[in-house]
């Protein structure tokens, strides 16, 4: 039983990073009804940019690295918007989708060329802290990742539901044409959505780097897949859904690894995805049908 609880708690805590990635996918989909497949790669790219702080100021605190990753993530988000959505006919869904696939590969290869594919040490906070209750343990750094992720989600929800920008974003996501008729600049809202998800992605990338302790371009593809799974299970366009699904996938994956081994783990995660696609295609928190 202890093994089960331990695996579940480890997985759920780590699942917070999946939730952050899932939110990025879901927010863009919610607003623009488009998938941005380069999101996880750009998040890892933001985390790499955070390491530039250590190049300029050796011995800089981890918080400075995270903050730089946060800013770089926002910048990368804007670049992705310009390259994959702004100048590409948005009415052609395949064009934007393929553009984001291209961006995923581009970001991945840029990282590889800049680092020669070598894993880089990533700073963490509270990585030497381990909370113990008998045999049961909780990693301090993962708890920190969990808290930061929850704070980011709370901040995002506050932004969406307590600010004029959030109101505009929600309006565009519900009815872009009506929002435009009300004087909302749809292009600007779309760009801001990418910057906000990029900022969130920068934090997600940094938190993943901090929880693994090492960054590698190897992370981009698995995180893209996990992000998509979380988005589908949570419900495309649902932020609470992405949060719950991220934690669920993290916990599910960890428990299955404990009992079925690493070679079967991903098989069951994919099976879970298929179960949702067949029995609940709208995901856990399927948004209500709109007027159109």
């Amino acid at each position: 039983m202890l093994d089960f609880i331990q695996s579940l708690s480890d997985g759920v805590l780590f699942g917070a990073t999946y939730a952050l990635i899932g939110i990025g996918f879901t927010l863009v989909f919610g607003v623009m009804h488009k998938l941005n497949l380069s999101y996880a790669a750009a998040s890892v790219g933001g985390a790499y940019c955070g390491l530039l702080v250590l190049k300029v100021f050796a011995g800089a605190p981890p918080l400075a690295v995270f903050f730089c990753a946060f800013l770089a993530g926002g910048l990368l988000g804007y670049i992705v918007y310009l390259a994959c959505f702004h100048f590409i006919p948005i009415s052609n869904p395949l064009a934007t989708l393929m553009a984001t696939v291209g961006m995923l590969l581009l970001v991945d290869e840029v990282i590889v060329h800049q680092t020669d594919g070598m894993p880089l040490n990533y700073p963490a906070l509270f990585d030497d802290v381990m909370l113990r209750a008998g045999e049961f343990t909780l990693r301090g750094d993962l708890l920190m990742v969990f808290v930061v992720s929850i704070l980011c989600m709370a901040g995002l929800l506050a932004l969406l539901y307590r600010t004029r920008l959030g109101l505009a974003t929600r309006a565009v996501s519900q009815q872009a044409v009506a929002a435009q008729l009300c004087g909302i600049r749809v292009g600007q809202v779309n760009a801001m959505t990418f910057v906000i998800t990029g900022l969130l992605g920068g934090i997600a990338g940094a938190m993943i780097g901090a929880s693994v302790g090492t960054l590698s371009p190897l992370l981009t593809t698995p995180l893209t897949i996990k992000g998509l799974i979380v988005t589908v299970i949570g419900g495309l366009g649902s932020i609470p859904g992405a949060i719950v699904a991220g934690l669920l996938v993290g916990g599910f994956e960890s428990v299955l690894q404990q009992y079925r081994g690493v070679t079967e783990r991903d098989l069951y995660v994919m099976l879970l995805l298929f179960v949702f696609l067949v029995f609940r295609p709208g995901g856990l928190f399927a948004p209500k049908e709109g007027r159109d």
Partner: protein
Amino acid sequence: MKKIALKGITAAVALAFAAGGALAQEKTIKIAGFGAKSGVVRSFGINSEAAMLAAADQINKAGGVALADGSKAKIKIDYYDDRCTAEEGISVARRMAGTDALVGVGPTCSNVAEPLFGILQKKAGDASDSGLQFPIFSDVAIKGGLARISEWSFRNVPNEMTMYSSMFYWLKQKHPEMKTVFGGVEEDFAHSRATWYVVMKDRAAANGYTIAGETKWLLADTNFATQVREMKKANADVVAISAHPFSTCGVLKEMQRQGVKPKLLVGLTSTSSLETMQGCAKQAEGMMIPTSFAPVNKEGKAAADATAKFKGSADLHSMAAWENMFILKQVMESEKISGNPKDVQADRRKIRDGLAKLKVTKGLLGDTKRTEDREADKPYLFVQAKGGNWVVLHNPL
């Protein structure tokens, strides 16, 4: 005065023509290098290319390769990126065979080498086999026994079976108090998987160790908590990690968090590189690895310095590429290749036959024995991570 000037000009023109003629006659021998220059194993390709360029530069500065007609040819290296994928590797091999390159040096990954050797002619000279007749001399791909696939494939990679056998034997003598070994294996990578199941596990048991268990993870995994808990429960004296630097570092960091401190850490041969030190030097402290290269002598240091000038780093893999260049020079000279474009296929065959004849080659750590199945039995050392560097712990030879 005018006459003297005219004679001077005539002489200069004649000299220039003579020099031009000599330049026009200067032959080049093309050697094709190939390996991963993109993707997460890019550093392997970069290092091998740098080592090959550095070795070619040294050979060329010393005059080049002596040809059958007594002339000398300079070596030119063309390096191809196979992206560490089988289909790209096969495509690169076909492209190389379509050029006037006489031999290929590569690839990086065993999952490329295995299918690639499969498209080469199995038995040299077999007219019924339409496989590629192009000699390939591997520097990096290390999975055991691959050269026997084709008589056109040769390898200069360390024999892991011998190295780990020797290491566990030495450990048993040196630390008889250590009795159990626990293995951690990166399950989805051909080399790391084969090294644990076929080499480390077998050799540890053969040297009297009890295998206390094993745990698995994947190359791109991010969470190693479950695996390290299994490791902790086993409480083995030795933890052997057969994985590449990214996941090795992830596991080592998780071991530190969970307070798992075995008496000794053993690593995969390929991990004795700069990558591990960049990712987790602190956590890798004390890790012991057998390797076929360390800059412990004058030749090794010189090779490492020369490679650094071409922006590469010297490790067991890139220095195999360096050695291959000098072995190939020796073979091309002893087999008296012509170096003429019309004789490319004949020269390739001569190089193949020459490589097959070799019994001993010169390496940076000493003589390397060549085996019947076209593999190498290279000298080796045991290195240990210390203060962010790999230092020599023991020289068993």
